[in-house]
């Protein structure tokens, strides 16, 4: 697939997710995906495999955040199999706190499936609003 095709795919998936339909995005994640939350804070680690990603990262976020959370994609930059997405979160915690993080997400695709995700965000905001990542969900190094 070309850069333009991959970019169009991510625009479609993230546009639909921002509108409330996350199913196509989740379906496009490959079983052998690796997702790395970059940095040195408590959330920073690599989730290996879709099951671990959904259970330990997305699962934990679902316990903290109110329904209706979304990330608005602002800009897409694509080259070959990589698509960079800048986005702005629009979320609230279940306790009522605003959590609007700034994201730069780097996706690598293979035949229309997401095989690698790297997330850069405001870690100070994450720790301050969401607290530390729980030890029982931490991934092996």
């Amino acid at each position, binding site marked *: 697939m070309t*850069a333009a095709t991959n970019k169009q795919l991510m625009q479609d998936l993230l546009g639909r997710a921002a509108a409330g339909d996350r199913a196509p995005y989740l379906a496009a994640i490959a079983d052998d995906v690796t997702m790395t939350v970059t*940095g040195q804070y408590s959330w920073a680690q690599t989730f290996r495999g879709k099951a671990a990603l959904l259970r330990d990262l997305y699962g934990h976020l679902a316990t903290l955040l109110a329904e209706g959370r979304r990330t608005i994609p602002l800009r897409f930059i694509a080259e070959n199999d990589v698509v960079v997405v800048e986005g702005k979160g629009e979320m609230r915690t279940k306790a009522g706190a605003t959590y609007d993080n700034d994201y730069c997400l780097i996706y690598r695709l293979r035949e229309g499936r997401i095989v690698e995700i790297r997330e850069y965000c405001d870690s100070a*905001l994450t720790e301050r609003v969401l607290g530390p990542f729980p030890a029982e969900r931490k991934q092996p190094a």
Partner: protein
Amino acid sequence: MSGAEIMSNAESRAVENETVENKRIIQQVFDALAEGRTQAMLDHLAEDISFVVMGTGSWSRSYDGKAAVLAELFAPLRAKLAGQIILAPLRLIAEGDHVVVQAKGRNMTVDGKAYGNTYCNVIRLEGGLIREWIEYCDTLLIETTLGPPPAARAR
């Protein structure tokens, strides 16, 4: 082939050439930064650059204009770090007037702490110069290792 298609192909080639040239410039800038040399970067900052440190940390804001970037961001940063500032590129992704650089810092503070932040820089060029630089990094690491910039502390 219609006239519109010919124009479209010509425009497409121009965009491809721009992408290749922009990526070459930014690769050159970061290859130098990986060795602690800053001149190539400084030479490519437009006078009206906007440099944005994303997030809610004490260094997070838009630094507008080359003079502000040098005086309010780079100078206080230099005062916090020992020796040359090292920023090594890991991957470049380019399209049109944008080049994205994933990079890793390898630095020490003046009081002897390791400072190895992880960066994603979204850079927009115009006419071979950097007009916009958006830096995503581990903002908590900045707070815990560097602390606030001097101006923020004084406020």
